[in-house]
């Protein structure tokens, strides 16, 4: 049944592939496979082997196909890889297509009754009587269905040689304290494992072996990381309207707030969470709260960003701090709500009408989701403006390995806020005057007990005293100061991460979740004798490093996950004299970008 022709044991030993393959589990949405997939992933992780997990799910609650891919990689590559080595084909709806998509020599574990061996003879099949085994695992019909998922964990564990102790640990973690569930699931894994031991002859080359590469690391999704960044930034007002893939950011934040920000003695909350009626209201509330002195935030995705446009310009023009998270998904319109994208870059950067430009932060790792979320609140209050933090579905909703987060070292920065005593000392308060020459004015909060403290915030033309004006010179003064403030921001937003390779003629520029693939791409290109330097943009506006980087290379490739090369265009606008040096690699089918794709695209253009 296999064409691997793994005849002798020695051959198998020699051909062993250790800690470098992808497992794809094909199941039905809502069938409960999520827990078994995380158990599988976590068990390998706890053996010290780098892993990453990606959930490819439909925009549906239950019934449609879903795929979970675990990449096991000893080098620590965690980007998506398009080739699958081991398929667990549990979904009859998609099994035929799934098995057809495999490369020759891949492994397919499937329920025996699907008879997948008839479809691909060049694939190595392990056919398992899952239904029969499930009957052994429980009397209860409903439970059997769920436990089916743990059975394949057992089978894979046996085939790959996953440490049973780690499976036990992962199951205990997954079902925290629920002894009955732990026992049931553990038993199902054992049944699967034992059946495999007794009935399957290992004929594939894939194995896991313990390493020490995950020691001390955590597994978390980007939305939870953003939530934690906000929690430790001291967020006080959270407004949101549910939308995939951003909902779990606020939902996880709400859990953390309830756990850690309700005073044990008084029972009172040091936060307010408001589920708004829409995103228009969500940002209106966030701005109202920011204006009144709260550390406010809202979180959304593309369609919500569009709705926020008018208010975003208001916040920019009237200088009100707030933080807006945009967990990007595929658009336009509803697009593909459960697929990833980086296509909101320009719309977020210039969100609203008129001359509007926003500070945009672009976290490219889990740690940066945490750190930049925190930093966004300081920047919002420092620059008195809405700050946009752009992540995406891949970063936000998938599980990633990460170093643990560090406790903030800097105190919270509330920006230029004048108290009654400050006004008394200064003798004067003018809301929109550039006192310090950095374009950032001073503000007061409502409730400040001083006859001069109040001012009138208006979206109409205003002078330095916040008075109504239509005078051309007043408008120029205001717009030019806002621009000056934006220029000041260049020195305070996160600088790019630059890695210069000696002798490299070409450079790669990327941002956000593309980083995972670029790391691997650079190694692949190096092997092909194309050394590359790398600059990862972490914020808009750009900082000085960008020009230097482009200048010092023959040409650069801007790699991004949108159709229109939005970052490339922004860079060309920023460096018009260097525009000819700037090339583009774009990946925009809704799947996370993979290294081989980028490598091939660059090789193609380098020929």
């Amino acid at each position, binding site marked *: 049944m296999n064409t691997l022709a793994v005849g002798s044991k020695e051959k198998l030993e020699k051909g062993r592939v250790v800690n470098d393959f992808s497992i794809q589990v094909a199941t039905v949405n809502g069938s409960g496979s999520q827990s078994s997939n995380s158990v599988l992933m976590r068990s390998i992780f706890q053996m010290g082997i780098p892993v990453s997990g990606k959930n490819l799910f439909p925009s549906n609650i239950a019934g449609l196909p879903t795929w979970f891919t675990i990449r096991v990689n000893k080098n620590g590559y965690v980007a998506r890889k398009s080739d699958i080595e081991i398929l667990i084909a549990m979904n009859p709806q998609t099994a035929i297509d799934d098995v057809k998509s495999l490369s020759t020599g891949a492994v397919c574990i499937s329920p025996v009754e699907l008879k997948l061996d008839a479809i691909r003879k060049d694939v190595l099949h392990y056919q398992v009587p899952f239904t029969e085994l499930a009957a052994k695992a429980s009397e209860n019909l409903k439970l059997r269905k769920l436990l089916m998922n743990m059975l394949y964990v057992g089978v894979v564990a046996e085939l790959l040689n996953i440490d049973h102790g780690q499976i036990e640990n992962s199951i205990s973690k997954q079902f925290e304290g629920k002894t009955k569930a732990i026992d049931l699931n553990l038993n199902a894994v054992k049944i699967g494992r034992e059946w495999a031991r007794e009935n399957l002859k290992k004929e594939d080359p894939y194995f896991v072996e313990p390493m020490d590469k995950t020691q001390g690391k955590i597994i978390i999704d980007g939305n939870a990381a953003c939530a934690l960044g906000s929690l430790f930034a001291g967020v006080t*007002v959270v407004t949101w309207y549910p939308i995939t893939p951003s909902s779990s950011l606020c939902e996880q934040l709400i859990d953390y707030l309830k756990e850690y920000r309700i005073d044990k003695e008084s029972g009172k909350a040091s936060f307010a969470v408001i589920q708004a009626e829409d995103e228009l209201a969500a940002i209106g509330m966030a701005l109202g709260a920011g204006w009144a002195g709260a550390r406010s935030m809202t979180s959304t995705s593309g369609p919500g960003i569009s709705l926020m446009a008018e208010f975003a310009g208001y916040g920019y023009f009237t200088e009100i701090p707030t933080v807006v998270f945009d967990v990007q998904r595929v658009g336009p319109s509803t697009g593909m709500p459960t697929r990833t994208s980086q296509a909101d870059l320009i719309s977020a950067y210039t969100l609203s009408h008129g001359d509007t430009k926003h500070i945009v932060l672009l976290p490219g790792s889990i740690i940066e989701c945490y750190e930049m979320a925190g930093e966004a609140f300081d920047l919002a209050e420092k620059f008195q403006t809405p700050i946009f933090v752009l992540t995406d579905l891949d970063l936000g909703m998938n599980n990633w390995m990460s170093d643990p987060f560090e406790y903030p070292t800097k105190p919270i920065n509330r920006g230029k806020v004048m108290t009654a005593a400050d006004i008394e000392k200064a003798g004067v308060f003018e809301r929109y005057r550039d006192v310090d020459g950095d374009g950032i004015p001073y503000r007061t909060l409502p409730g400040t007990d001083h006859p001069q403290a109040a001012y009138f915030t208006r979206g109409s033309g205003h002078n330095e005293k916040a008075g109504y004006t239509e005078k051309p010179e007043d408008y120029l003064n205001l717009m030019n100061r806002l621009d000056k403030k934006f220029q000041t921001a260049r020195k305070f937003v996160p600088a790019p991460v630059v890695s210069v390779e000696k002798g490299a003629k070409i450079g790669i520029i990327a941002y956000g979740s593309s980083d995972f693939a670029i790391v691997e791409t650079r190694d692949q290109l190096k092997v092909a004798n194309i050394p590359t330097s790398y600059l990862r943009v972490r914020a808009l506006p750009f900082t000085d490093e960008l020009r230097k980087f482009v200048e010092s290379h023959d040409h650069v490739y801007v790699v991004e996950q949108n159709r229109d090369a939005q970052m490339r265009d922004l860079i060309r606008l920023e460096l018009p004299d260097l525009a000819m040096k700037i090339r583009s690699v774009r990946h925009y089918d809704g799947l996370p970008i993979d290294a081989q794709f980028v490598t091939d695209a660059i090789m193609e253009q380098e020929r």
Partner: protein
Amino acid sequence: MVTSTPPTNRIGLTMAEYKGAPSTLCDGCGHDAITAQIIKAFYELGKEPHMVAKLSGIGCSSKTPAYFLNRSHGFNSVHGRMPSVATGVSAANHTLSLIGVSGDGDTASIGLGQFCHLVRRNVPMIYIVENNGVYGLTKGQFSATADLGSKAKSGVINELPPIDLCGLAIELGCSFVGRSFAGDPKQLVALLKAAGSHKGTAVIDVISPCVTFNNHEGSTKAYKYAKEMETPLHELGYIPFFEQISVDYEPGSMQEVEMHDGSKIRLKKTERNYDPTNQTQAILTIKEAHDKKEFLTGLLYINEDKEDFSTIMNVGDAPLATLPQEITRPAKSVLEEIMAGLK
């Protein structure tokens, strides 16, 4: 030489200290008459101006917060979205008194959704709709509160039924709903003061004629029409908590409503015998008035027992806006605990 010092209120401020910039609205605009009563109400209530936040949307009406309470922070927001801003301000600092001014276009058209949700949340604030039946600022188009059959200045007849914002608010559970007329300062100021004592959303729909675009014969929002048609449901008196006086009255002729801060509303009944604490009667009365083309004013509905938004949010006494880092940033051990759980 004798200098006469201007009178002051209970916190020692003069009426002038509750004023704003000079109005830029048309002479005789109903909105200016309302502004004058807002100034009077806040002066007489002795509210501390720095503890007040003024909010509005967009329109001639929404400009008016610039014309009162100069010493209060103001937020002239975007068209129809003042409710969300007010909700955010209230969440950030529930110790502020909020007063919002909107128009009938701002509230009943573009902002209808946010208005409903503000009411539903019972965000503590005074919410005034300066209702002239038209979009004043964009030069006189009909708004969604224009009565069926009402005539525009150009002669066009309005063919759509109006949205009754008071009826809608009561339906949504609003805890304080009044209707008044810019030309009835005595009633308006009493309503405003009562609204200032209310803990929850207090909606006051004030017919406020637009002298430039909707004050002609055939308009149901004109001064002349409103003056002739106004039918008060009761004579409204407000006794603030700091000025308790008792009066003698015939049993059954007066209804007293005690407010949460100890102030009282005294309603001298007319032959209608209207009880503003009865929600069903309120809805019925509005419906009937509609059918009979009556213009009823007064306190339509009040419920002092409903929980307001800040109570539901369960925040402490200090405003969230000024909580120190010690309270808003959890300890290092918390982060360590969370990290350990993710390993």
